[in-house]
């Protein structure tokens, strides 16, 4: 109870605090402190849930079960490391004169606000509140993406706002339909939007309505997940916003959107008893893996490059959950974890790299390794990890996903492997060019915060070689919930 209260309240309070004092020199410290406190609270919550099992709180509006508690912990962790990273990053941006003090205030308070919405979306039990939180997350991130106020960033933000706004609207319609169907079973006062209640009665829900509802929800939240062909906002938003924002977008927002889809999938599967939702997710998952892998080789902007890679991995996860079953869902959850850890680590490294080069153009970034070995190795290892090279954890999950696919959908496995091969060729070629060679980049004024990078990569490496038993157990339970 209290833990969750803290988890949700701390970001909110620190957002307000930063809205007031965000322009002070100490703002980054407040930011990090707030994130750290959130992390601690989240850890406590996790321990609690491991100990006592699922919790339902605040007259059932909030609940925590194995599925979302690990996402909460992950979100808090990545939020914290990102805040650490953004300290020197934002300083450098400020020194380069790209950000005024006022903007820094906006950035800090919005960052915390964003974390708050994420955590609400993850921990709420009410599909409506989930929707509200997702919309709020969109609004906050729109502000963050447009932070630089350059034409490019405004364009990106605009597209982001319109596309995701429309998408979210569809999701609302889907929610209404679910409510509509549930009300006929639970009655208007029966908490017809509370997932726990729905989960109980899901067998009795009207199949046709739920299938239509799922279509709307899938298109809606799928837009935020970045499923092809709804993904078009994603590369722009990743490329034009400040790098910490790209990191949390890739690392957290996409996960949360996907989490929403999964929650709905559980209900729909219960109601339909068919593999309708699964097939939908498999189809879009495949599409979402294949298309971006072909985009990669054309990219000139490094953050755009990794944006597309995020889309690809979201597709892979969607595919995994679409297949369902203990192994695939396990792999999907694992992939969520390692992807957000790795991708945010990559963005940290990329951010500093871009600052060193003074540009995001891949062709103008060369020889990172010579100037700053840590950044160079961070980027290189991160890329190798995200490309599914053992012994990093991404390979673990991809191994499980692919082997399951070989078993059940051999044709899909072939397609996936081709796409992954193309992605490897394209992406590694570009990154190698940036990391190796004679340097064109200058060293940084402030010494970069690369602790997060290596903490993340260390975790990913560990997950590649050894998944701690309790974590595995946790994944198993979550996978059982998803089915």
């Amino acid at each position, binding site marked *: 109870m209290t833990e969750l209260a803290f988890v949700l309240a701390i970001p909110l309070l620190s957002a307000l605090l930063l809205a007031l004092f965000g322009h002070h020199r100490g703002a980054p410290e407040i930011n990090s402190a707030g994130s750290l406190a959130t992390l601690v609270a989240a850890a406590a919550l996790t321990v609690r849930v491991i100990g006592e099992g699922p919790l339902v709180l605040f007259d059932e509006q909030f609940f925590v079960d194995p599925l979302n508690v690990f996402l909460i912990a992950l979100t808090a962790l990545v939020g914290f490391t990102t805040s650490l990273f953004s300290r020197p990053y934002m300083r450098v941006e400020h020194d380069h004169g790209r950000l005024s003090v006022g903007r820094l205030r906006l950035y800090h308070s919005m960052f915390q606000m964003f974390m708050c919405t994420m955590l609400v979306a993850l921990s709420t039990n009410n599909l409506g509140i989930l929707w509200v939180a997702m919309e709020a997350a969109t609004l906050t991130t729109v502000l963050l993406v447009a932070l630089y106020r350059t034409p490019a960033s405004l364009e990106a933000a605009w597209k982001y706002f319109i596309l995701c706004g429309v998408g979210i609207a569809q999701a609302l319609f889907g929610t209404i339909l679910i409510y509509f169907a549930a009300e006929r079973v639970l009655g208007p006062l029966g908490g017809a939007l509370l997932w726990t209640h729905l989960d109980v009665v899901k067998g009795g829900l009207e199949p046709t309505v739920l299938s239509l509802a799922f279509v709307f929800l899938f298109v809606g939240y799928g837009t935020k997940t970045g499923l092809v062909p709804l993904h078009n906002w994603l590369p722009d938003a990743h490329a034009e916003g400040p790098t910490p924002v790209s990191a949390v977008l890739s690392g957290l927002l996409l996960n949360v959107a996907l989490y929403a889809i999964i929650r709905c999938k559980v209900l729909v599967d219960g109601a339909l008893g068919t593999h309708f939702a699964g097939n939908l997710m498999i189809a879009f998952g495949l599409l979402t893996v294949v298309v971006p892998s072909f985009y990669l080789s*054309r990219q000139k902007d490094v953050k755009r490059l990794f944006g597309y890679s995020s889309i690809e991995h979201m597709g892979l996860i969607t595919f995994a959950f679409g297949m369902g079953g203990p192994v695939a869902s396990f792999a999907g959850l694992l992939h969520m974890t390692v992807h957000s850890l790795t991708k945010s680590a990559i963005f940290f490294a990329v951010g500093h790299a871009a600052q060193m080069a003074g540009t995001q153009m891949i062709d103008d970034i060369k020889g990172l390794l010579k100037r700053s070995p840590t950044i160079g190795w961070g980027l290189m290892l991160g890329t190798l990890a995200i490309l599914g090279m053992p012994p990093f954890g991404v390979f673990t999950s991809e191994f499980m996903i692919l082997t399951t696919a070989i078993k059940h959908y051999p044709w899909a496995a072939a397609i996936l492997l081709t796409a992954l091969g193309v992605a*490897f060729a394209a992406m590694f070629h570009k990154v190698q060019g940036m990391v190796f*060679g004679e340097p064109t980049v200058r060293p940084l004024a402030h010494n970069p915060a690369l602790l997060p990078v290596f903490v993340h990569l260390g975790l990913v490496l560990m997950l590649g*070689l050894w998944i701690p038993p309790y974590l595995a157990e946790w994944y198993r339970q979550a996978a059982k919930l998803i089915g």
Partner: protein
Amino acid sequence: MRQLLLIDWVLITALGWLAIGLVGIVLPRNFALISRYLFPLGAALALVLALLALAAIGAAPQVRILPLGLPDLPFHLRLDALSAFFLLLLGATAAGISIYAAGYLRPGEGTAPGLHCLLYHGLLASMAMVMLADDGYAFMVAWETMALCAYFLVASEHRYAEIRRAAYLYLLISHVGAVGILLAFGVMAGSAGDYTFDAMREFSSNGYWPSVAFLLALFGFGTKAGILPLHVWLPEAHPVAPSPVSAMMSGIILKTAIYGMLRVAFDLLHVQLGWWGVLLLVIGLASALFGVIFAAVQTDMKRLLAYSSIENIGLVFVGIGLALVFKSFQLPNLAALALTAALYHCLNHAFFKSLLFLCTGSVLHATGERNLGKLGGLIHHMPWVAWLALIGALASAGLPPLNGFVSEWLLLQGFLFTAGLPHGYLNMLLPTVAGAVALIAALAGFAMVKFFGVVFLGQPREEKLAQAHDAGRLERLGLLWLAAGCVLLGLLPNVVIALLDPVTRQLLGGGLSYTAASHGWWLLAPISEDRASYSPAIFLVSIALFIPLVYWAVRRYYHGRLTRVAAWDCGFPLQTSRMQDTAEGFGQPIRRIFSPFFKRTREHPSPFDTQPRYRSIVEDPLWYWLYLPVARLVEHGTRLIAFLQQGRIAIYLLYSFVTLLTLLVLTRG
């Protein structure tokens, strides 16, 4: 605590390598420590590993399960005869290479010494793990880690675009290959979905699935082994790596691919089909011929050796293919003969190719030149390297009484039995293949004479070569170790064959030992003495007797007067070092005879050139026929797909709109 088995000790050795690497990375700049203590320590561990493997070859298989890996698929390890043999190869070769590397390492070259130490020993450890792995996941992890370490080692001089390109090509192709291997495991695990090798052994898939698995594995391991047409990365990557790494890649990493191939083809798959063997034969012959022809026309000494590696791997594949053919006809002992030849050749190649690569390393350090056109006459300045390289070259040329000859002899003996096969075409065609093998061996002789002669003999083609210095003490030690290996493996074939016997028994259920051993250590007679026999010992002894005898006789009955004069050369008056055959010149007959193999581009001088210039570039046609088209295809695909994203928000909205409507209609209908 339970007492430690051999497999545990092997594991501990691998961990020891890792520990060495970590110590290196912790003290990255402490050059003295790394070169003087860590690398020799690594060499010592390699020796230990070799001894353990030696003990393990005869022993019963041992298994261990580590608490690592996936929750429901922990790392399974297994130490049986096959893995023991390849571990022996690894240890014995790596010992020489490591001790050499200890002397070879220079401060301020390529990557920081500490990092180099980590990658180098990481590579060793991962290779050991590849040999030990007993489930798909552990194997893939070890396999890709190996590729990764090798990639970083290749790229250690990454300021040159050429090297970056080579390294990229290497990692890309080996990654694609790994995908193939993964699929092969998937097929072998089948519907059971259990990825331990034991399960795969049990799982008897039927119909065309075994063939699918075999072909996938062939593709996967072929990329690493560098067989045609998957070889293009090899002549790029092997030469540009630091020489000890080149030696490791050619000497050992290629063998891991052979190991995988054997593991899949003979151990994991429950049937062996004849046409697999024929396929391997064809591919092997093609690779061998292609490799040796290209080796003969190279102008870069390390590229030459790299192509020669392709040739040798091709020969190994020929042996494996032959074994498969015999196995498919239920002739275990003949299969054992062929497989023995293949494994023997693996061992030999590991020794002489590492030796040669290390020699080029010393030459590189002494002269800074890889281009054959700028070397020559080094035997005067670096006698040690030269004479040891001569041993390597002779062995690589497959000449008695050195080791290269023994394996080729066994291979040819194997071919002599193909006439007895109960199959209409094979018994006609396969014996003639022996002719091709002989041609390949002879061409290898050509290439090796070119290599040794141009680098070490003749007059120096550049002034700076006069300052060339011989290899240091540790480097000499490493070279000596490998050269001794070449000689001993050539002299004691029966010992080696007795060593190989458990492997062939494990894989084929047949062996040579009972006949081979029956004639004593000095006489090799795999089938029977009057069938075929070869005794390198007598061979060497008699030559070694003759030479001093003749020398003594000449000196005894005649005088030994000798005066140094200028070279005669048909009395041709003014001679410069440029008048000797260059590498191109030496390769000219090959270029002429095998012209269809090459893609040649020439630059002719016009009659009016003030400084006429002639160039002839020989390239690999496969690159243009196979790889560029694929690249273009992908490029085209990207162009098509990129068209989807025009930047217009209206279009994007339309996408969502259409998606929504389609889904609605589909769901409704």
